[in-house]
């Protein structure tokens, strides 16, 4: 294929890289200001958020242009700015940010999609009285995400990562008065935490091994050859190298954030948040963060791989990704909530990205991430517009026939759906093809390839089903649907355009994107398209997609006007349908195992606290009480007044032993004075001796 002369690396930081910190800083500052605003200052809050975001977008574009210029001049730009945060003993903790093709691309994507979503939400949220709070959270979230993107130190990465987690919690639970939303927020927070614990472990391990958390630091970074060699020399359990183990731990964190199989449960529930939030979190940013993390630490993941070979972490990544892709796609088939379907499709697409990373390398996964970001944002916002138009109806069985009512939404949504299901020459097609191709050539096993193909079929199917439910057939809801205002449709249109066009950056014929990320030069080579292998693959995937769409239309094309009518497949195969509808009982499984364990453990702890410790304390107290009683008895029997007083003192001092907290100032004073006496005595004696 292309000749692979690697570019000369370029290390010194240019002014634009020096100022890169502004990109996350500005939204965060905007959030800080917005946090101080009073509720009625809606306009100002929105202006702040959008203004800051557009600034970031502008700046990111500059940075991107800078990197691009470098690339055209044959330079692999990787400019890092590192600062020592603090010193621990003789090892110092450093923070820093990096500007390289990866971060540049990601920056542009996040800021662009984010900006569109901001604009969109100005209208979508207009009736919410917590408008200002919403925008405060939004820009804080965006800032944190941008921080994740530019981070050049695993520590900074982790901080921003956690900040993202927090803000996602705040945003998902934005309508905290809805118990479902509140619990969903909690669920998201805790589930991601599970991953983060492993991530933290990996980070600490990495630090203990290499003594630095910087990714790139002119050869001293933890992702650069010396550190990697060091890590490879260390051996952990199970025949893993330290590098492998750390890679796995970090992947656990990534899995938590981007909802890979065991930890995916939070993502569908997160749909309780406002739709723009879903778009932002589940399309562009948060879930992408996990994938981005893997892409960022790819050298670590890949460490020790022979040429063309692969490593344990990558294999794990691949399998988990592939499994998630199919698994989530299956569930998505049987969902009825428009946003839930999208959520599960997101999960499965994330699976695709992971698999792509595992098998094809950074570029493949990242490319799918970017394209997916666009069309998934488009889909979510389209769904939002549908919900908006149907008076906050989310059940697709109560929609239908919106084709005529909201044409723009239908058009854009259709494009998004086609892109997602990988219809030829739309962006999704190319990115997914990249992954499939990589899977085809994967040396370890062929199974992932078939799984992914099956996933593609399912994707096409359930998306068609959804579209058929929502836009085709006749109106089954109440009231009448109406098209959304321009503020919401224009972003849709823009995204739709990118959903179509973006793929052209990464066609096998002209893999500009891959070249850009990996620092190679590239040029048009039409003949690649007609190479038998690739052509065959493309044809198969096209056939699969068409089959999926055809099936969908065949089954759901003419939906009966009754919303309550059972689903066609349900009639066909009730039992598995119910399984799928109940999301394969993962939640229930957790409820039975993990949560049950915790409740049990809590009960045990409570019991310990009550019986054992409480008993001990009670017994001690009773002993003292007995002592006090004894004193009282003595007291009663001694008649002499002054001696009586003395006994009174003894008993009260006995009581003082029992409960030192009399609350009487003078008691304390007395103890103090006694202490003085004793101390002075000791002092004098010691001085005499």
């Amino acid at each position, binding site marked *: 294929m292309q000749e692979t002369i690697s570019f000369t690396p370029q290390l010194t930081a240019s002014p634009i890289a020096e100022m890169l910190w502004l990109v996350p800083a500005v939204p965060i500052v905007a959030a800080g200001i917005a946090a101080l605003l009073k509720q009625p200052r809606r306009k100002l809050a929105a202006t702040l958020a959008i203004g800051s975001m557009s600034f970031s977008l502008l700046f990111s574009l500059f940075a991107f242009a800078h990197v691009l210029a470098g690339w055209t001049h044959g330079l692999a730009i990787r400019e890092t700015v590192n600062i020592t945060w603090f010193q621990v003993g003789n090892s110092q903790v450093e923070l820093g940010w990096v500007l390289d093709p990866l971060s540049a691309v990601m920056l542009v994507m996040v800021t662009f999609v984010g900006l569109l979503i901001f604009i969109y939400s100005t209208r979508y949220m207009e009736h919410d009285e917590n408008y200002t709070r919403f925008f405060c959270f939004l820009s804080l979230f965006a800032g944190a995400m941008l921080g994740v993107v530019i981070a050049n130190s695993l520590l900074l990465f982790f901080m921003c990562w956690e900040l993202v987690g927090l803000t996602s919690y705040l945003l998902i639970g934005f309508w905290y008065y809805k118990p479902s939303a509140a619990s969903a927020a909690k669920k998201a927070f805790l589930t991601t935490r599970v991953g983060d614990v492993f991530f933290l472990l990996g980070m600490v391990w990495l630090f203990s091994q290499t003594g630095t958390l910087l990714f790139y630091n002119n050869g001293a970074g933890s992702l650069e050859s010396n550190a990697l060699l060091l890590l490879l020399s260390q051996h952990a359990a199970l025949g893993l190298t330290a590098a492998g183990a750390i890679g796995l731990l970090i992947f656990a964190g990534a899995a938590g954030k981007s909802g890979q199989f065991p930890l995916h449960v939070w993502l569908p529930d997160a749909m309780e948040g406002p739709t723009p939030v879903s778009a932002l979190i589940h399309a562009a940013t948060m879930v992408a963060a996990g994938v981005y993390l893997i892409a960022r630490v790819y050298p670590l993941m890949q460490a020790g791989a022979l040429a063309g070979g692969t490593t344990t972490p990558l294999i794990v990544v691949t399998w988990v990704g592939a499994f998630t892709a199919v698994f989530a796609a299956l569930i998505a088939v049987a969902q009825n909530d428009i946003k839930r379907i999208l959520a599960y499709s997101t999960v499965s697409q994330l699976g695709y990205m992971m698999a792509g990373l595992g098998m094809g390398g950074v570029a493949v996964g990242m490319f799918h991430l970017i394209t997916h970001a666009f069309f998934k944002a488009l889909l979510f916002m389209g769904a939002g517009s549908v919900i908006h138009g149907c008076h906050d109806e989310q059940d697709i069985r109560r929609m239908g026939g919106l084709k005529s009512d909201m044409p723009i939404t239908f058009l854009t949504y259709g494009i998004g759906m086609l892109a997602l299901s990988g219809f030829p020459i739309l962006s999704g097609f190319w990115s997914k093809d990249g992954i499939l191709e990589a899977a085809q050539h994967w040396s370890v096993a062929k199974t992932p390839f078939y799984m992914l193909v099956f996933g593609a079929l399912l994707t096409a199917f359930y998306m068609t089903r959804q579209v058929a439910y929502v836009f085709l057939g006749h109106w089954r809801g109440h009231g009448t649907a109406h098209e959304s205002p321009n503020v919401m449709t224009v972003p849709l249109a823009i995204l739709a355009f990118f959903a179509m066009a973006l793929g052209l950056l990464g066609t096998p014929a002209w893999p500009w994107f891959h070249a850009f990320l990996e620092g190679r030069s590239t040029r048009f080579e039409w003949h690649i398209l007609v190479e038998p292998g690739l052509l065959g693959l493309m044809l198969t995937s096209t056939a699969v997609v068409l089959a999926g769409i055809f099936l969908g239309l065949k089954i759901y094309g003419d939906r009966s006007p009754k919303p309550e009518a059972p689903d066609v497949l349900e009639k066909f195969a009730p039992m598995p349908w119910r399984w799928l509808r109940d999301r394969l009982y993962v939640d229930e499984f957790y409820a039975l195992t993990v949560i049950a364990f915790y409740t049990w453990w809590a009960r045990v702890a409570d019991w310990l606290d009550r019986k054992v410790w409480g008993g001990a304390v009670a017994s001690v107290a009773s002993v003292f009480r007995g002592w006090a009683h004894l004193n009282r008895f003595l007291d009663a029997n001694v008649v002499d007044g002054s001696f009586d007083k003395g006994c009174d003192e003894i008993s009260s001092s006995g009581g003082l032993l029992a409960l030192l907290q*009399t*609350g*009487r*100032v*003078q008691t304390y*004073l*007395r103890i103090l*004075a006694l202490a003085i006496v004793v101390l002075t005595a000791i002092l004098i004696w010691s001085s005499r001796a």
Partner: protein
Amino acid sequence: MTPLASYLLVAALLFSIGLAGALTRRNAILVLIGIELMLNAANLNLIAFWRFGPHPEALTGMMFAIFSIAVAAAEAAVGLGLVIQIHRHAKTTDLDAMNRMKG
């Protein structure tokens, strides 16, 4: 001229008198008075040691005394303010009656 010991004895006496007052009186204000007396006794000690010390020109003891006077003023202000507030709250300044956090 009087020896240092006598000053120290007077200071000790005043200190214990103040302590006795703080320990035996019911009225919170009188407890405060006792504490003031104790502080003053301490000041007397400081001054005496400054006067009889090897380097009076260094002024250390005197400074200490002056600062402690200033601090004592602050302490008195806050203490009495508290007492007044307590009296407003609990309608008493009797320390024996004041042994609960809630009024």
